[in-house]
């Protein structure tokens, strides 16, 4: 059976072990919170729950999804756990796998997460996939690393002002890549690279962006239209998903994958016990490395992991003399559109 006929596996979190899904012969397909589906999730989920999760449930209830062989939900936060509950309820015929994810990245956590990925591999096998072998896993990881390298090149071109459409165009590519297998995505990016490289000009103010979920390309277009030039960013729906995966041989496949995922640029929900508040350092380092003149943080309403850490991020950036604009969204363009004036004023202040 070819990979294309095994079907798609839905996912919704950057900690999803995509190489394991691809190696089992499925196409990992990110369910993005981009849809015109009506608001219905409130029937099962409270109003104060993450709008990302609610948009995904809206899509599921509206059947605004491609045919899927199953859904993988990572237990990255309370909202994601509730997503798994609601998904089971609204799509009872579709298998759902809840992948347990430790909050820390120590050796014991890596070992446990590896057993969870192995459990996922068994489920994928039961869902009609191929039995996973280290060789196939390594091959899939290599494909994703190739994809990650292509995205790195595109990001470099964006920073140099040689990617037509800038960060908004990059988001279009991120979104497409997360809905197809790594080989097809690599082909798409290679074709894109062939068409880039011309100086697009642009004298925007260099800005570093960070946050959780910001998938709408129009949101980036709005920020760029406000006078920003995005020189670096870190989002769940962006580069985080394509950071390198290291898998060595010798039966260490799942452990290598687990280690790589837990070492990824962290979502606020992951931290180091011996260095509380390390998210602050990550944002500071990102802003410094990209020589940004200011930072814009965009987080979703009701996101506990970020809500709890934003005050210390704000204090640290203030102490470092780096201006910060915090925006809160709900996965609708309207929510960021309402903040256009604040974005323009922030950029203007930095000129």
């Amino acid at each position: 059976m070819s990979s294309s006929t095994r079907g798609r596996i839905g996912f919704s979190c950057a900690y999803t072990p995509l190489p394991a899904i691809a190696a089992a012969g499925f196409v990992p397909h990110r369910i993005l919170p981009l849809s015109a589906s009506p608001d219905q999730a409130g029937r099962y989920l409270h109003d104060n729950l993450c709008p990302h999760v609610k948009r995904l449930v809206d899509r599921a209830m509206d059947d605004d999804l491609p045919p899927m062989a199953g859904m993988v939900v990572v237990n990255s936060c309370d909202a994601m756990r509730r997503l798994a509950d609601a998904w089971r309820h609204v799509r009872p015929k579709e298998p759902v796998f809840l992948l347990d994810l430790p909050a820390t990245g120590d050796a014991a956590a890596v070992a446990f997460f590896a057993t969870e990925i192995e459990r996922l591999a068994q489920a994928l096998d039961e869902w009609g996939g191929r039995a996973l072998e280290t060789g196939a896993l390594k091959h899939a990881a290599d494909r994703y690393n190739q994809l990650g390298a292509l995205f790195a090149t595109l990001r470099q071109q964006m920073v140099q002002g040689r990617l037509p459409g800038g960060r908004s165009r990059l988001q279009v590519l991120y979104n497409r890549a997360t809905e197809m297998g790594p080989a097809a995505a690599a082909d798409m990016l290679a074709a894109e690279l062939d068409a880039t490289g011309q100086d697009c000009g642009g004298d925007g103010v260099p800005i570093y962006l960070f946050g959780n979920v910001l998938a709408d390309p129009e949101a980036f277009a709005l920020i760029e239209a406000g006078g920003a030039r995005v020189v670096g960013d870190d989002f769940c729906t962006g580069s985080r998903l394509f950071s390198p995966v290291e898998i060595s041989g010798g039966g260490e496949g799942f452990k290598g994958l687990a280690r790589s995922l837990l070492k990824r640029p962290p979502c606020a929900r992951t931290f180091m016990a011996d260095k509380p508040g390390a998210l602050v350092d990550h944002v500071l380092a990102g802003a410094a490395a990209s020589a940004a003149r200011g930072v814009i943080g965009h987080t979703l309403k009701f996101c506990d992991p970020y809500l709890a850490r934003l005050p210390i991020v704000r204090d640290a950036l203030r102490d470092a003399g780096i201006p910060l604009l915090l925006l809160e969204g709900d996965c609708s363009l309207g929510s960021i559109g309402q903040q256009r004036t604040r974005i323009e004023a922030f950029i203007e202040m930095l000129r």
Partner: protein
Amino acid sequence: MMKSYFDDLVSGIEARLAEDPENRSPRKVYALEVARLGQRLYGETESVAWCGVTAPFDLLAAMGVTSCFVEFVGAMLAATGMEGAFLEEAEHAGYGGDTCGYHRAVLGAARKDLMPVPDFLIATSSPCTGGLAVMENLARHFEKDLFVLNVPQEASDAGVRYLADQIRDMAAFVADHTGQRLDPARLRQAIDNTNRARTLLEEAYQLAQHVPSPVTGRMMGNFGVVMALLLGTEAAVTVARTYRDAFARRVEKGEGGLARENLRLLWIQNRIQFKNPLIEMLEKDFGAVVVADELNAITWEAIDPDDPYEGLARRAISIPFNGQGRRRVDHLQKMAASFKVNGAINPCNWGCRQGTGARGLIGEGLKAVGVPVLNLEVDCIDSRNFAEGQLRTRLEAFAEMIAGRPSPWH
């Protein structure tokens, strides 16, 4: 301030209990031990650990550490009507009103130096990501070492082994910070106390299921979750036995907690922590008694005193807030049946993603067994926006509605 508050509380309750030593109110015995815990936390004489909700408090007790989950502070501030200033402090520091009131109050208390500086902190990934985040913030604030217990969602072999190993590592971490190794004899004694308390609590909860129930609505508020703090100590055994015996006496006499029990209610998640008249109103106006609270249940097996780590791990994994929502719904359905409740009240604590997030699924699950659910929109800690009149009207309508229906258990 807090030290003298708890000192006064302890002496006041002791005096009242001494007035009638043969007929000690179980709630007062419980309140005394909780106040004594507060005394130790603020006494500045013992090692103190701030913890997450599912930390192994009996193991910490065996190691001579006074430990407490931080949400206790939020509840205590609300119960004493002091939460407003601390919530405002946290909000001024940037912690928004959409976050959990328990955690905001704790962060405000820490910033205003109301919380004793701990020797170290033990975070737990269950029940909520918000709780984990507040522990990270507190570790940064106090500049104290943090240990994280990742609690798996399911009691698989790998999950139990992972958590049991972490608890072993935690014991080593604690020993490094207190300078005292874990004494196997003390641990065995602590686990024995836990098991004795467990048996007595199980008996008390079973007696509470009797019709009419020996409980009153106030008697069991916050009981199960706070009892976890006393586990491992003789105090836990004393409190559990006092409850069990008081219930047994009432059941034997055929007495209910209320003279006239018309309706039996299940309270989902936590109580509203600040003073409010709703429970009394339900009892007085409708004869409606909260006979069951979601966390007043034993969900774990007795722990092997000679090899407790696996049992401690299983206990942490077993709480209804952990794991899939389906498990929680099953738990609530079983409670509804065993307590023969007519209805359930779900105070959807604003800011609680893990708890209120699944309210629709909980509502459907209980409806499936014939139990209607009233969802209340309330912040269980923050009294500033408490809409008493609105909640009272909704509770009245709900009580009238279920009074007009036959019990699903007849």
